[in-house]
C-alpha cells in the first residue's frame, strides 16, 4: 500500500468537517420544510416540494453549476452575502453547502415519512392540555419524529461523505480547503498509476461511513425504544 500522503489525512478531516456541518446545517431547514410540507397547505407547496427534490433529479454537476451561478463570487447570492462575511465560493463552507443541498431531499423525505406517521390524536391531546402548536411540535411531534430525523441525518451524512459532482463543480478541488475524500479519489483516478491511493481512500471512506452507520443504528434502536416507551 502506498505511503499515506498528508494530503489524504487532510482530505479525511475535511470530508468529516464538511459532512458533519452539512448535516447539522441541513437539519433545521430540513425539519422545517418537512413540517411545512406535511402540515401546512399553502400555495407553492408543490413547488417547494419540487425544489427540494431538484438536487436528486439533476445530475450533480448541474446542481454544482447552479450553485456556482448563485453563490459564486459573481452570483447574486454570493454578492449579497459577501458583505455579511459569508463566503461559500471555493471554501470548505461551499463544500458543505453543496453536500447539504445534495443531501437535503433525503433528509426531508425521511423526516416527512416520520411526521406522517405521528398519530394526530396525541397532538390533539397535547393541545387540549394547553400546548400551543409550537409547544406541541416541540414536546410531542418532535420527540416522536426523532427516529426519522436521525435516519434522515444518517442518510444526509452518508450522502455528504460521498458527494462529489456538485462539490467539485461548485468549489473546485483545492487541497486543504475543498478537496474532500471523493474529490481526492477522483483526482487520483485521473492520474496514471495512482490506483493504490484510490483503494486506500475508498477504504477510509467506507470505514468512516460504516462507523457512523453503526453508531447511528445503535442510537436509532435506543431512540425507537425510547419513543415507543419500550
Amino acid at each position: 500500500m502506498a505511503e499515506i500522503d498528508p494530503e489524504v489525512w487532510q482530505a479525511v478531516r475535511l470530508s468529516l468537517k464538511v459532512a458533519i456541518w452539512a448535516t447539522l446545517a441541513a437539519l433545521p431547514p430540513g425539519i422545517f420544510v418537512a413540517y411545512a410540507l406535511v402540515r401546512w397547505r399553502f400555495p407553492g407547496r408543490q413547488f417547494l416540494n419540487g425544489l427540494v427534490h431538484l438536487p436528486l433529479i439533476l445530475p450533480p454537476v448541474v446542481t454544482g453549476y447552479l450553485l456556482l451561478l448563485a453563490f459564486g463570487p459573481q452570483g447574486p447570492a454570493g454578492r449579497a452575502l459577501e458583505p455579511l462575511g459569508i463566503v461559500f465560493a471555493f471554501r470548505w463552507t461551499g463544500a458543505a453547502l453543496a453536500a447539504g443541498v445534495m443531501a437535503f431531499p433525503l433528509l426531508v423525505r425521511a423526516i416527512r415519512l416520520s411526521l406522517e406517521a405521528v398519530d394526530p390524536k396525541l397532538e390533539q391531546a397535547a393541545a387540549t392540555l394547553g400546548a400551543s402548536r409550537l409547544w406541541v411540535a416541540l414536546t410531542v411531534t418532535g420527540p416522536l419524529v426523532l427516529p426519522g430525523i436521525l435516519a434522515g441525518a444518517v442518510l444526509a451524512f452518508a450522502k455528504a461523505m460521498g458527494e462529489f459532482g456538485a462539490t467539485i463543480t461548485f468549489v473546485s478541488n483545492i487541497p486543504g480547503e475543498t478537496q474532500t475524500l471523493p474529490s481526492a479519489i477522483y483526482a487520483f483516478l485521473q492520474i496514471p498509476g495512482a490506483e493504490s491511493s484510490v483503494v486506500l481512500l475508498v477504504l477510509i471512506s467506507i470505514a468512516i461511513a460504516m462507523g457512523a452507520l453503526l453508531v447511528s443504528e445503535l442510537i436509532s434502536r435506543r431512540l425507537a425504544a425510547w419513543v415507543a416507551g419500550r
Partner: protein
Amino acid sequence: DDLTVFAAASLRNALAEAAASFTAETGTNVTVSAAGSSTLARQIEMGAPADVFVSANPGWMDRLEERGRLVAGTRRDLLGNRLVLIGNGASPSSLGPDLDLAAALGSDGRLAMALVDAVPAGIYGKAALTRLGQWENVSARVAQTDNVRAALALVAVGAAPLGIVYATDAQAEPRVSVLYRFAEDMHPPIIYPAAAIAGANEDRARAFLDHLHGDAARAVFLEHGFAPLTDTPDG
C-alpha cells in the same frame, strides 16, 4: 502569499512535483486544484481564486481569453501528448496503418473513448479515426466515457477490447498495451496550454509559468510521459 493552480485532472501529480521544486526555489506555497478542464474554466470564469490555469485543451483556454480572464501575454502551450490505440491481452498484438478497427473489435466488442464530441481525447480520437476512414465503421460501436481515464479503465478491466487514450495514460496502466500510435497530424494538435489568471498574484503566476517551462519541470513532465513543448511565448 500563496499560489493556486487550477490544472486538468490528469496533470495533478506532475504539476504537484513541478510545484514542489518551485516552492523549494521561491518559498511560495503552491496549491493545485485538479478537476476537469471545463469545470475549472467555468469556475475561473465565475471568479475562482486561481492564479494559474493549465487546461487539457485549448478550447476552454480560448474561452477564458475571450472573456478577458487571462493576463495578456502569459498564455503558452505547455505540453503535448500523443493519442494511442490500446488493447488488453486478448487483442491482436499490433495493427498496421491499414488497420480495420471494426474487424478488430469482433462481433460485439466496444471501442472505449472519451465523449467524442465533448472531451478532448474523444474529439481528437474521432478526428483521427475520421482521417483514417474508420469512423463510419466504428461510430456505432464506441462506448463513450466522461473522461479518458474511464475509457482506459474499460479496456484495463476487459470490458472493452480496444480503446483510444493518451499515451501518458497507456504508459501508466500495465493491463493495457499500445497497439497503435496515431500520427500527430491525424488530429488537431494535442496541447495543454497554461496561462496566468488576472488577479492579485500576477507576478508570482508569471514566475510559476516560467518555472513550468524551465528544465526542472520539463524533466518531470517527460518522466510522466508528456511531451513538453518548446514554443516561445506568443504576443
